[in-house]
């Protein structure tokens, strides 16, 4: 039944359950005061949202693939990435092991 697509995690019921606490924390970052609170005391903020150990470690590592592995959904993770000053090209570069310049070139090449 499951359709495996290389390098892609389907955000399905299993992932949504697994990632709930992490995604709920990221959803809170719509509010500026919450982004500030995270910046001031990341440990306390993550504890308040009940992140699992795996999720806490993934956030600490700033590693997007680990956050996805821990159930994170990219639409919510992008709000967290914004706090770290990372845009979607930065995220793409990190996940594919390319430099940001190489990742942008990969995108441009897709149009040629």
């Amino acid at each position: 039944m499951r359709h495996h697509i290389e390098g892609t995690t389907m955000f399905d019921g299993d992932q949504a359950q697994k990632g709930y606490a992490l995604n709920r924390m990221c959803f809170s970052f719509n509010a500026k005061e919450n982004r500030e609170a995270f910046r001031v005391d990341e440990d306390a903020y993550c504890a308040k949202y009940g992140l699992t150990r795996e999720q806490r470690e993934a956030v600490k590592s700033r590693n997007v693939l680990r956050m996805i592995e821990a159930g994170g959904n990219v639409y919510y993770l992008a709000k967290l990435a914004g706090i770290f000053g990372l845009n979607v090209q930065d995220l793409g570069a990190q996940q594919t092991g390319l430099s940001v310049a190489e990742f942008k070139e990969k995108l441009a090449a897709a149009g040629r």
Partner: protein
Amino acid sequence: MARVIGGVGTTHVPSIGKAIADRKQNDPYWKPFFDGFHAVHKWLASEKPDVAVVFSNDHGLNFFLDKMPTFAIGAANEYRNEDEGWGIPVSRAAKGNAALSWHIINEVVGEGFDLTMCQEMLVDHAVTIPLQLMWPNGDWPVIVPVSINTVQHPLPSMARCYELGRSVGRAIACYPENVKVMVIGTGGLSHQLDGKRAGFINKDFDKLCMDQLVADPESLTRYTIPQVVELAGAQGVEFLNWMAMRGALTGTVSELHRNYHIPISNTAAATVLFENKPRVERRKAA
């Protein structure tokens, strides 16, 4: 009676909001994308739609995973935008038409689409950016936002979204007020933000989707959601909004304009403009 005069499909990448705020329309990176709207502006200036029904997906502004409706519709007289957390400027609010929303709700639910009804709904960049792109002077029409879940699987099928659009199209056609309505489908085309396949873009599939959207949209309903993810990328599933938009054009449809440019941010950016003529006026395709 109300009538659906046409439709637009457009990308809604958040960074477009920043580019508009920073007036980068003529910047070499952005120009090929923004130039794709001139033809749309011209058409809008001559057709002057009163209402835009906007099919889009929320990205975690109005809906969270605690309650995720497959299909939701706004039934308000105003729709606000708020801070989305990723640094794009907050947009001004769009006006709604609750009476038209309730008419659509009554008709569409009556046909078997169990919409979640929202008397309050925040609209995110997936609604506000297309409005800013299409009406840069800010003279937005009234909107009816329809939100389709493209975030948490299982997603509604291509066929279901197309049929939802058809049902909305029929509902508009029996609305007794004399209003000109257009439909907008936002998002896509191919892109993937997450995973080791991040940066995936599929020009051939995008072209096929745009071609078939005009000529034979039903042929696209054969793709399952996993196939769309595979062919268009994990976020390329936003094409579901385009399927609904196309479904609402139940007359004789012709493509008046198309623009396709890679990349905008991580996305294959596309803009299409469709005209919808009553079937009785059927004429030879151009």
